[in-house]
Every structure is written in C-alpha cells, then in structure tokens.
C-alpha cells in the first residue's frame, strides 16, 4: 500500500512550501517539494512601465534580498540601452550587494539554521543559553541594514537605485560611520565561521552535484558577465536560457530548472567551490583551513560556505568604503540614460545564488517583456533530488522520523520561496 509522508509548511524558510514523500512497498516512489506561494505576476506588472520604475517594483519581490533584484534590473536595462556606468557607481553597487549578503546570511545562519544544530525550535528559545550568538546575529544584520540604508535610503526596498547611478551618493562621514560599524561586526562574522565549522554535518544527503555561479573576474564577487559551471563550461549571461531550461511543474508555483538534463545548485556553496581561490583576507585563510569540511557532495555544508562568505563580505565592504573615501566621492552624479530599443540580460549573485533579469524595452524605454529567474527557482529541482536521495537512505529510521532531517536539508539551501504580503493576524484583543 502506498503511503504519503507530508511535512507541511517547512518552517524557518522564506515563504511557504511543503515536502511530500510517497512511499510504496517500502521504497520511496516519488517526492515533491511543493511551493504553493501565490504567484505575484511581477513580470506582467512590469510590462508597459517605464524603465526607471523597474528597480522600485522588482525590489518588492523580496524583503530579504531586494538589493540584488535592484542591481540586476539596472544592469540589464543599461545593457539594453547600451549605456555604461562609472567606477564609483560600480563600487557602490558592489557595496550594496555585499551589504545584502551580510544581512541575509546573518539572519539565516544565526536565527534560522543555528536552532537546528543546537536543538531549539527557534532563535527566541535560544536566548537564555545562546544570548551572545543571537546578539551577534542581530548586530551583523544591523550592520548590513545600515549600509543599505545609507546607500539606498532604506534598509529594505531602497529608493535611490536607478539605471546609470544612484540618485543620492553617500557623504564621507556616513561612509566612515559604516566602516566603524562593519569593523565591530567582524567579530560576529568570525564567530559564525567558528560555530558552523565546529558542527557535524550529517551525510544522509551526499550525492553528485552540479554547481553554477557568476564568474566575478579576478576578485571574489557577486557581479559578472559570464556563468561558470562545475563541468568546466563558461557561458555568457545572455545565454541564460541554455543554463536554466525552465519548465512548469504542476505541484509548484516556481518553475523547475535543469542543465544538460540534470538539476543543479546555486548559492554560497556553489560560489565558494567555483570561486573560492579568489577570496582574500581572513576569509581566504579560513577557507584554507576549512576546505576539507566544504563537501561538494553534501548540500548541508552550504551553511559553512555562507559563514565564510559573510566574513569576506564584511572585510570587502570595509575595503570598498576605504577605496571610495580615498578616491573622493563625486556627489553630482547625473542619473540620465539615453533610451533606445533593445534587450538586456544581467546576472548577479544574490545571497541564495545566481539571479537573472532580462528586459526587452521599446524606443521610449517602456518594458515590452520581462523575465526574472530567482535562485530558489533554480534550486527547486535540486532540492527535490536531494529530498529523494535523503528519504531513500533515511527510510530505515522510520517514516515518522523523516521530518527533522528533511527540513534540515531544505533549510540548508536557505530557500527564499518569496514573501508576498505581510499581514498581522489577530485572534484575540484583550
């Protein structure tokens, strides 16, 4: 007789998803990673909008990673217009992406993943015993938020990011304050690496994997014009459809991706495995020491890769600020581009992996077509593959005990099933 194990509403992930495992005659017959987040049709909302409205609209796709959406959008629009930006704008964009990495990884590592490994239901319950860790996590997140606030006017859904530049450039004293704050938060980033390197990662999910990440050039980073694949291939971002090959699946509002017929993984583990030799400073030293723990076959080690990246992002953000201060900030940046008909594609690394934005614009700069492929959509098929591998191996421990390990696996990807509306639901007023 067939039996279905259903893990409803996976907790401590961004958005809403279920895990379903169908067991027949003592074997795992089918697994589903159901994403039932309501589609929000953002790509359709964009059609007919002017190019300068796009960064503000796409930032609403996610409250955890609005910044990569904004940077990807403006870069794609600039490519469509054949426009380029100066070094200062490029550096400010890098800083914005670094800040989002810090803020998002801090939240995931300290508040969402750590309770799993320390045996608590959530971060709130950890406070008595692990108050220092929770404080470090919130302080790190706050430092990331502070950088975003200075650069974009808000720590979420910023409003200064436009094609060709920022409508407001930070002052030197604002950047100096940020640098001090980041220096103080380095302790939290290093503690995260220590914590996540001391954990034992279960091996129930080990299996061959394929990875993809943006090729950042010479320095470890989150922007680039090519995509690296772990099979040695390198593709220009314009060919992203060859890499994603999206298909709709009935059980998920997120499409599934595959590369040469196989599911693949994007995110911190993919980046550190493909680009780790380009890391610098403390992160490079720590990677050297911890490399054996980063297991390409075990997606659970994504958490350790996130911790290493957080340390890198803090150090690199300080370095970028120093360089901006050294060079002197041009305050009178004219945010103006010349519209023309065209198509532009960009890829940036969001905290959870490669994010593609593609826009077709008409000669007035209106959006004719938009295509946005998020990292979690790319990871969905990979998550499903590993749920199957894990469930098969774990069946012997009993169906009723599958929930914990399978949730741990899904959470390791830090999936951003995407938040839509936030609403306080009140059941009683005293």
């Amino acid at each position, binding site marked *: 007789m067939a039996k279905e194990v259903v893990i409803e509403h996976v907790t401590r992930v961004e958005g809403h998803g279920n895990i379903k495992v169908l067991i027949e005659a003592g074997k795992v017959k089918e697994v589903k990673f159901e994403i039932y987040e309501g589609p*929000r049709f953002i790509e359709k909302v964009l059609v007919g909008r002017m190019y300068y409205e796009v960064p503000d609209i796409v930032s609403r796709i996610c409250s955890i990673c609005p910044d990569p959406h904004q940077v990807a959008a403006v870069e794609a629009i600039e490519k469509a217009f054949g426009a380029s930006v100066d070094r200062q704008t490029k550096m400010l964009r890098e800083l914005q992406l670094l800040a989002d990495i810090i803020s998002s990884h801090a939240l995931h590592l300290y508040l969402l993943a750590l309770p799993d490994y320390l045996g608590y239901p959530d971060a709130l319950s950890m406070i008595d015993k692990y108050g220092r860790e929770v404080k470090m996590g919130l302080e790190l997140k706050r430092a990331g938020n502070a950088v975003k606030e200075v650069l974009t006017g808000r720590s979420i859904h910023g409003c200064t990011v436009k094609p060709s530049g920022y409508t407001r450039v930070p002052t030197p004293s604002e950047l100096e304050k940020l640098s001090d704050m980041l220096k103080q938060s380095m302790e939290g980033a290093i503690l995260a690496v220590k914590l996540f390197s001391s954990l034992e990662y279960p091996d129930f999910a080990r299996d061959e994997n394929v990875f993809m990440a943006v090729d950042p050039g010479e320095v470890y980073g989150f922007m680039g014009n090519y995509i690296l694949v772990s099979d040695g291939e390198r593709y220009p971002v314009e060919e992203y459809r060859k890499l994603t090959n999206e298909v709709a699946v009935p059980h998920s509002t997120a499409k599934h991706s595959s590369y040469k017929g196989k599911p693949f993984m994007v995110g911190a583990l993919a980046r550190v495995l493909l680009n780790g030799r380009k890391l610098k400073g403390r992160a490079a030293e720590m990677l050297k020491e911890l490399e054996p723990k980063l297991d390409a076959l075990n997606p659970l080690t994504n958490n350790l890769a996130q911790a290493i990246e957080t340390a890198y992002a803090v150090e690199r953000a300080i370095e970028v600020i120093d360089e901006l201060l050294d060079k002197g900030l041009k305050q009178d940046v004219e945010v103006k581009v010349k519209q023309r008909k065209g198509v532009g594609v960009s890829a940036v690394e969001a905290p959870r992996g490669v994010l593609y934005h593609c826009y077709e614009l008409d000669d007035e700069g209106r959006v004719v077509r938009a295509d946005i492929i998020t990292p979690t959509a790319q990871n969905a098929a990979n998550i499903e593959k590993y749920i199957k591998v894990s469930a098969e191996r774990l069946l012997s421990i009993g169906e009723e005990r599958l929930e914990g390990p399978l949730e741990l696996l899904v959470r390791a990807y830090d999936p951003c099933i995407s938040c839509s509306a936030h609403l306080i639901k009140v059941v009683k007023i005293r």
Partner: protein
Amino acid sequence: MYVRPLIACLGNPLMGDDGVGAAVASELAKLGYEVVVCGSDLSPVLTRVEEVDSLIIVDAMDWGAEPGSVLTAKLEDLEEGRVRTSHSLRVSDAIKLVRSVFGRPSEVYVVGIQPERVEPSTELSPSVRRAVNDVVAKVRELFARLREGKVNA
C-alpha cells in the same frame, strides 16, 4: 519624562490593502515625521532601536472588523494568530527578540487597519483609502502623547 517614539510603517504597496502602511508613511513624511518604511519585514527598525524608547507600528491587520476600521492597541494586548510571514516570525516574537538583545523598545503600540483586499494591486480599496487620514491623525496623537510621557494608549 522625555520619550522618543519611532514610527514604523509596514506593508507591500504591490499587494493592495497591505500597502496601507506605505500610504500612511508617505502622508506622515509630508508632515515632517521621521518614518521607517519597512516593507514586509520589521528588521529596518534595528538601525534605530537604540535611539528610541517606544515604537508605533502601522500595518494592515486582520481582526475580522469592517474594512477600513482602525484599531490602536498595545502590542501586548493583541494575541497574534500563527502568521505565515517572513520566516514564521510574528511581530510580537520579532519584538521579543529585539528586546532581549537591545533592551528596547520598552513600549510598542500597533495602529492596525482592517484590509478589504490583499492581492496583487497598486491601489487601496475605497474603504481603506478613506481610512488613511484617520490613521494619520491617530498616529500623530499617539506620537504626541508618547513624547509627553503620557504613555497610556
């Protein structure tokens, strides 16, 4: 007693009436108030939390009332249902977490607006749109009372 309150407006303006917080924020900003525009995540208050004693949260809130109704209450007096929001963290839990680490804010008030429709749209429904001025007035009144140290809502 001088108490510095902070106003935090939550809500996604692309999700119909959920965007009422953003609409209130823009009216308050026109009047010269400093407002933290939070979108769908309360974490933007983190960068200000050490400067303030009290927090006023403005958000769409479902308590089964007539659409456009406005309710002001202490956060502690609201029993929140299980919400499927960012990482399953309810507003009350997020505040508990922040308080445990930073010892602030001591007082949290919610000015909630009952939505009519929460679905993809950039428009507020008429009932909620009509309530915006009332919400702004209630927030201003609460802000003034908190500043003067008259902290009973």
